[in-house]
């Protein structure tokens, strides 16, 4: 497979404070990746390093097989949409679009115009007069219409309502279908994007904790609920992420594939089995606790 990004032993420290610890991964061409994790976990630092906006303390990064720094031919292939992109104060939306057309080789002006309409953006208005949501929409228009072979959206939707986010997801999937490229979505709205992701990276505390197909993550855990004693009987010898009890009832999140044998065991005990969403699983995994960490490293 064609590697778009290869990262080896990537580390970033500020003095004695290390924010990214020895991270290794590679991304293949034409997939939608999710880069997930809590605020402050190091996601943005990693994205800034793979887009040459920040130097690593140590480690190696190759994008499209080349080194990044001062390498315009690679940087033109990359579009990075940040949470709070800064533009010169005098710029109107139209100026931003003009600049993009000269920077991104695959820029599609017509497509940008149609997106501007979808998001109801006033092209002649100055950037500094835009609302927070409009500013986020400008970033989304740029990210989609650049059609860059590597497009990164870092929490692109500050101030965007559910309708606008849904338009973003629709347009993203449509355009990705006709113009496949590598997309990285970094967000904490995991439930909203999880079904669009093909592969997921989870960063916790500066370390890469999960690097797996989205479908495989969904099969990592399930929950059982029922009378406390029966839940405990079921969880004996099983890796348990959490256990909550109310009255005589308990619910536990258990690691492992929900195969038919497990299912029938739970059924015999009269326990209710439910799936655990990607968001729930990641919340439990990144909710700091050494016991949980042990469960992941199994």
């Amino acid at each position, binding site marked *: 497979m064609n590697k778009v990004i290869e990262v080896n032993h990537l580390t970033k420290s500020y003095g004695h404070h290390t924010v990214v610890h020895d991270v290794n991964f590679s991304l293949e061409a034409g997939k939608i990746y999710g880069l997930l994790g809590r605020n402050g976990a190091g996601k943005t630092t990693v994205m800034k390093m793979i887009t040459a906006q920040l130097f690593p303390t140590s480690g190696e990064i190759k994008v499209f097989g080349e080194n990044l720094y001062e390498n315009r031919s690679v940087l033109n292939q990359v579009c990075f949409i940040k949470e709070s992109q800064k533009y010169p104060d005098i710029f109107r939306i139209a100026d931003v679009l003009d600049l993009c057309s000269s920077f991104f080789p695959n820029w599609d002006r017509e497509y940008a115009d149609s997106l501007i309409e979808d998001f109801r953006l006033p092209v002649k208005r100055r950037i500094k007069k835009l609302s927070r949501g409009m500013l986020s929409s400008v970033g989304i228009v740029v990210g989609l219409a650049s059609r860059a072979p590597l497009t990164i959206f870092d929490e692109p939707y500050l101030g965007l309502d559910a309708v606008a986010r*849904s338009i973003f*997801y629709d347009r993203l*999937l449509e355009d990705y*279908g006709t113009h496949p490229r590598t997309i990285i979505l970094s967000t904490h709205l995991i439930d909203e994007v999880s*079904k669009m992701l*093909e592969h997921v990276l989870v960063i916790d505390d500066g370390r890469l904790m999960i690097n797996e197909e989205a*479908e495989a993550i*969904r099969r990592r855990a399930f929950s059982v609920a029922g009378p406390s004693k029966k839940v405990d009987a079921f969880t004996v010898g099983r890796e348990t992420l959490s256990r909550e009890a109310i009255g005589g009832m308990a619910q536990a999140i258990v690691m492992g594939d929900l195969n038919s044998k497990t299912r029938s065991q739970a059924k015999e005990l009269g326990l209710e089995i439910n799936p655990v969403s*990607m968001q729930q699983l990641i919340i439990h995994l990144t909710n700091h606790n050494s016991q949980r960490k042990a469960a992941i490293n199994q």
Partner: protein
Amino acid sequence: MIDDSRPIYVQIAERIENDIIEGGLLEESQVPSTNQFASFYQINPATAGKGVNLLVDQGILYKKRGVGMFVATGAREKLIKKRRELFFEQYVVSMIHEAEKLGITREELTKMIQKGDKIDE
């Protein structure tokens, strides 16, 4: 819509199966493209493709090169046969278990089924 209960591609395959069984997708008619499924359900196109391929492997759908996916002749009959075999395990067994738990006798259960007939009419 799509939920977390089972792999997404399995759910996509089941939706196509249901559409064929209920007559929404006729035999030899064209199936929506992977990208159309992806947009409609807001899922990854690769996942949608995996669901479609599951049905290709079972001979329910077939590919016309350069045109797209089509429903195979005999697909509906094949699917109904498969679903009938699953019916006992999926519905009847769990119904009997629940009935036993609640102390519902077989006679009462039979009456309920007959009552259910009327709902449909």
